[in-house]
């Protein structure tokens, strides 16, 4: 039945363009919303399991705790959409703020720069790392996965080496502001993440550069043939991702109040999990910022819920993984198409 119908629609699409259009327009939308049912189910479970779950305080906590992750996911999503990979973002989260801090704090490199210069340097470090990755991958055509894996190790090593494993803490207040200051009750970091997601989402949908990203990720050669400056944009995306990861690192620094030599370690798994659960394709060319954001929220809510639900600590991880798996299936069966 339906087969015949959709057949018809394809063959005589123009007879009823509006109808066909509406019908087909829904599919990609649906996909973006795939995680929403899972999120709603979780919120309901949360409300049942623990009274304090749906309180403003707790919801703010959830958002505040996931701001840094959200920023890194944002960067990674851009790289993934452009058809590449960046594992080293997790190390940027650590090394960028650490270098900024070492330039500022008395116990650091001894330069004792002004806090503002330190923060600017943080962004710069992120950009430089991104540019270096971009150079190796786009210009030298090295494999992105393995380049950024090596970079991850190098940067992680540099962080341990530069700090001699010590935790940096006596940073000026400015380093913490993003995570500690609030605006209408929400930390600045949360606002920042929201605004950046919104802006990026807009650019991806309504600006040629955003569309180029999808084109490059979807078919590099075709994008090149269509006149898109593939190399420049590809390289740029690494820079942007590096800067976003550096900002994420700064937010994390404020959240934790210090920079541990392990900052960011292992985070990339969560970053990929959020992005991919949120519908960003590892094959490139597909995914939206809204989807990625729901991925971040899903993970944050699950984590919060598990703590509040008082699952015995030994089993929390197992349950966490299981919930992700189930959400994934739920998304698959509500969202329709298999995800690649």
């Amino acid at each position, binding site marked *: 039945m339906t087969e015949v119908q959709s057949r018809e629609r394809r063959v005589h699409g123009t007879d009823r363009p509006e109808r066909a259009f509406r019908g087909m327009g829904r599919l990609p939308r649906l996909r973006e919303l795939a995680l929403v049912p899972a999120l709603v189910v979780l919120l309901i479970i949360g409300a049942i399991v623990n009274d*304090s779950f749906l309180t403003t305080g707790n919801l703010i906590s959830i958002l505040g705790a996931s701001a840094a992750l959200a920023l890194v996911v944002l960067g990674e999503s851009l790289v993934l959409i452009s058809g590449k990979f960046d594992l080293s973002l997790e190390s940027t989260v650590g090394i960028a703020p650490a270098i900024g801090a070492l330039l500022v704090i008395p116990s650091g490199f001894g330069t004792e720069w002004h806090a503002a210069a330190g923060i600017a340097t943080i962004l710069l470090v992120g950009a430089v790392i991104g540019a270096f990755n971009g150079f190796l991958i786009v210009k030298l055509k090295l494999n992105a996965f393995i380049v950024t894996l090596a970079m991850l190790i190098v940067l992680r090593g540099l962080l*341990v080496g530069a700090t001699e494993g010590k*935790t940096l*803490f006596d940073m000026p207040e400015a380093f913490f502001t993003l995570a500690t200051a609030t605006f209408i009750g929400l930390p600045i970091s949360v606002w920042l993440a929201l605004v950046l997601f919104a802006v990026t989402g807009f650019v991806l949908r309504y600006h040629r550069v955003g569309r180029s990203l999808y084109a490059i990720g979807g078919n590099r050669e075709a994008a090149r043939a269509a006149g898109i400056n593939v190399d420049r944009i590809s390289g740029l995306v690494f820079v942007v991702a590096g800067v976003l990861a550096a900002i994420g690192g700064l937010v994390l620094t404020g959240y934790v*109040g210090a920079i541990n030599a392990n900052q960011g370690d292992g985070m990339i798994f969560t970053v990929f999990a959020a992005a991919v659960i949120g519908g960003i394709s590892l094959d490139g060319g597909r995914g939206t910022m809204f989807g990625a954001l729901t991925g971040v929220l899903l993970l944050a809510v699950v984590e919060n819920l598990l*703590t509040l639900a*008082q699952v015995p*600590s030994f089993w929390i991880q197992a349950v966490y993984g299981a919930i992700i798996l189930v959400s994934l299936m739920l998304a698959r069966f509500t969202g329709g198409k298999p995800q690649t």
Partner: protein
Amino acid sequence: GSTKDTAGGGGGGGGDGKIGATVPLLTSPFWQAYNNYVPGMAKEAGLDALPTVNADNDTQKQITDINNLLNQGVKGLVVTPLDSAAIVAGLNQAERKGVPVVSVDVAPESGKVAMVVRADNKAYGTKACDVIGERVPEGKVIQIMGDLASVNGRDRSEAFRACVKEKYPKLTVLEIPADWQAEKAASGLEGLLTANPDVKGIYMQAGGVYLAPTLQALERKNLKFPVGDPKHIVLVSNDGIPQELDAIRAGELDATVSQPADDYAKYGMYWLKKAMAGETFSEGPTDHGSTVVETMPGILEDQLPAPVVTKENVDDEALWGNSL
């Protein structure tokens, strides 16, 4: 214990009065033991503990955990900082809510805590160094270190190095950064032993993780000889889990520094109970044989003894490793 529970009965649930406890990670036998002690020790102290939360070696998660516990309205917290500095944001949150905090194992860099319950990790390194130094006049010794980013590991490493340099200058230290991971310890050790078959002693900074791979590597290199044999390599570990005590009895291990997992839990709850009752503390001896010292302005530390365990005292009932 000298303090008896004041909360009558045992069933008196009630939202209020609940306390929260964290563990830094659960993949170490030491912290696993601590984790097991928490509920019992809390009950003994008359406190009602929510299930412990595990930061899984992630400083950010630890802060989030503390926030979550505070959001649930706990009246007291026993935290085990992963890091002395990266806990301060959590302590500040607690202070804002007026919730007293006892810090276990690691003293915070700043922030308000009612009491720090810990054994001195620097002392571990020094003690291990002394045990080896007394038995090995000269030659190479290896220290298998932890995660370079962990305070406890760093304190042990630095103290061990410093002590060797100062007191036993005829010893040379070789190092393996093994990240609290067994296979890194094994492969690093094997590599070093191949190049340096004349190694005389080994300090394992986490017995729970490194003991087995060390023994295994020695066996593979045909360097495993019982304590007392002239070819025996002196082995000292850290933690005091039951398997280490067994190894001492079996003559495989020379000594271990017993990290008091039970007392960590016990006195964490002890001080928290008092702090929740509004007591304030000062320096001086305690009722359980330790002393409270002000290590930094405003930070009081109950320095629990961390005994060195050797063949002589391995069967001591007081060792937590013997009472599991």
